[in-house]
């Protein structure tokens, strides 16, 4: 069964460093998302992406964050200058359709630790 994959599974970085989190969505999916979950808290929406553009972003997704689909398979989240509070599990998700049938499938996550 097709699944969303994410790399790396765990990333440790120093405050102020740039990180790139990578995702390979399910191949026939057209809508892509990033979410994060700080330890012990709710899963929070960061950004949605469709047709090579950001569709919607949350207040969390400030100028330090960017997303890109550099080729036909990868979808990346870049954090330019990491802060301690960026430490969280980051999940990529994808869906085939929008609206009523927007069934989102999540990857296993990347645990980001900022020191």
């Amino acid at each position: 069964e097709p699944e969303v994959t994410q790399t790396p599974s765990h990333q440790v970085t120093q405050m102020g460093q740039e990180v790139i989190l990578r995702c390979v969505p399910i191949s026939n999916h057209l809508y892509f998302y990033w979410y994060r979950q700080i330890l012990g808290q709710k899963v929070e929406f960061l950004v949605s992406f469709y047709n090579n553009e950001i569709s919607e972003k949350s207040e969390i997704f400030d100028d330090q964050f960017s997303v890109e689909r550099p080729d036909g398979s990868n979808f990346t989240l870049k954090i330019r200058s990491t802060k301690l509070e960026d430490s969280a599990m980051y999940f990529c998700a994808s869906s085939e359709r929008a609206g009523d049938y927007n069934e989102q499938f999540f990857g296993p996550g990347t645990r980001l630790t900022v020191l």
Partner: protein
Amino acid sequence: SQQGEEDPQALSIQEGENATMNCSYKTSINNLQWYRQNSGRGLVHLILIRSNEREKHSGRLRVTLDTSKKSSSLLITASRAADTASYFCATDSHSWGKLQFGAGTQVVVTP
């Protein structure tokens, strides 16, 4: 505004028993989805119910949706130890697919 609040926060049952958890939300929705998360792991999609549906089944899972009360329930029948996990509801409210998650129900199934 907060969407998708689950109740109860925690549930402890014996194998073979049924587990029921509820989700309430505040705004109108396109659909509501239930996910399972094992400790420290990814989110596994369980079931999606659209706003015009009232009930849906998938294996041992039964989901109901009452849009007049803005609530949903997830029933797991004949629970197994492997069902031990956190369960989350997530609502899609007519935006670009943004899901809003609740805090989840932690379910522990003891053999």
